[in-house]
């Protein structure tokens, strides 16, 4: 009882441990695994990310040159960014903001992708 008293008094004198989110936001850690972003101009549509993704939320269509990703199915494991052959796929530090509707992220390559020796894979 008495040690708890000293604990609660100490808490009263110190700053609270909570913060007024979203008014004050702590910056993410450098290593934090946040949102997946694809630089579509660099992407070669090889499809490796789609094959490796454990939650199978990436779809790559090589012919149509589009890369789509379902952020609400993504588990933020970071495997896709790790295995990306061109380095176009990056994992940002910050989390995706909450959304009202589930939506696919569909990115379209501007030009036809450069020829690749691997056979096209679609996930």
């Amino acid at each position: 009882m008495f040690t708890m008293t000293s604990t609660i008094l100490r808490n009263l004198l110190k700053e609270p441990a909570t913060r007024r989110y979203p008014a004050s936001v702590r910056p993410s850690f450098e290593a934090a695994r946040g949102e997946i972003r694809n630089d579509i101009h660099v992407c070669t549509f090889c499809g490796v990310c789609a094959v490796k993704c454990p939650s199978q939320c990436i779809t790559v269509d090589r012919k149509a040159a589009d890369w789509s990703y379902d952020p609400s199915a993504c588990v933020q494991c970071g495997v896709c960014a790790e295995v990306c052959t061109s380095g176009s796929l990056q994992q940002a530090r910050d989390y995706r903001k909450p959304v009202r509707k589930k939506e696919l992220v569909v990115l379209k390559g501007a030009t036809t992708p450069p020829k690749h020796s691997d056979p096209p894979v679609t996930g």
Partner: protein
Amino acid sequence: MTRTIIPFGPQHPVLPEPIHLMLTLDDEVITEAVPAFGFVHRGLEKLVEIRDFHQMIYVVERICGICSMLHAMCYCQGIEEMMGIETPPRARFLRVIWSELHRMHSHLLWLGLFADSFGFESLFMQFWKIREKILDIDEATTGNRIIVSVNVIGGVRKDLTLEQTRGILSELKSVETELKRLETTILNDYTVQNRTVGKGVLTAKQAYELGLVGPTLRASGVMQDARMLKYAAFDDIAFTPVVETDGDCYARCKVRFREVFQSIDLIRQAIGKLPNGEIAVKVKGRPDGEVTSRVEQPRGEVFYYIRANGTKHLERLRVRTPTFANVPALLTMLPGAGLSDVPVIVLSIDPCISCTER
């Protein structure tokens, strides 16, 4: 009052997860307790048929939101054993560090919930405040607070820099002092002892015969801990399990409280002996055969059975989680207890229902 039947759960504020207990009361004394499961079954074991054995790491991690790292570690160790992969020493030490961090945050979570179960809300907040520090370490070193995703077959994905290990050590120092400050409250306070001492007693014989695991078993005086199997780097680290003999809720609380300090010590040892070198080896080929694997989770021993047939999909994966082994204890402890002791007793086995149902 005469006989009353209380539907305790599946949604109940003192229960962290959905388990249903049908309690038959005779004037606030329990005469019978019938548990029911099946509210969070997700069929994760079945996923082996459509996810390959690498992807399964991220699936088994999500069996449980608290001991996720240890699930992945148990799974990876099983596959490594099956494929005859020798993990590099640094990876084995790193696994110990992260797994003990996991044990710490799980126990701190439990200590908070336990305090909440006997209505000590301010103590609950204190434990969870300390737990945030551990979660911050996790996030800074691995990128996520709980689902750390560091294990891969053949090693780990992330490395610790010298700076990070120093950071961990200094954070642990402050965690240790803050916990010491709460020690008299959780272990010696009159009101806390009044609610925990002598509640839900299990003798060593009972506990052993019921097949209990983890702190629930060790609090009854049985020295059994899967870390004694010397998996990962435990063969290079001095370790003796924490054992208490009273077998009541207080003893279980004491075991877990002491284990937090033990984990701090284990992490210090592991960081002190952390060898240099690779953190993972390349994995070639596909698993074939069958294997069992065990590690000590915060709640007790988890058991994996894996059977593979040389393809990229496993044939069978079966997980026996510690809570599954510990629930029978409830049926022994609850009859005869008062209604106000139900949350305390239920929490004292640290039930993790998502684990149990997968």
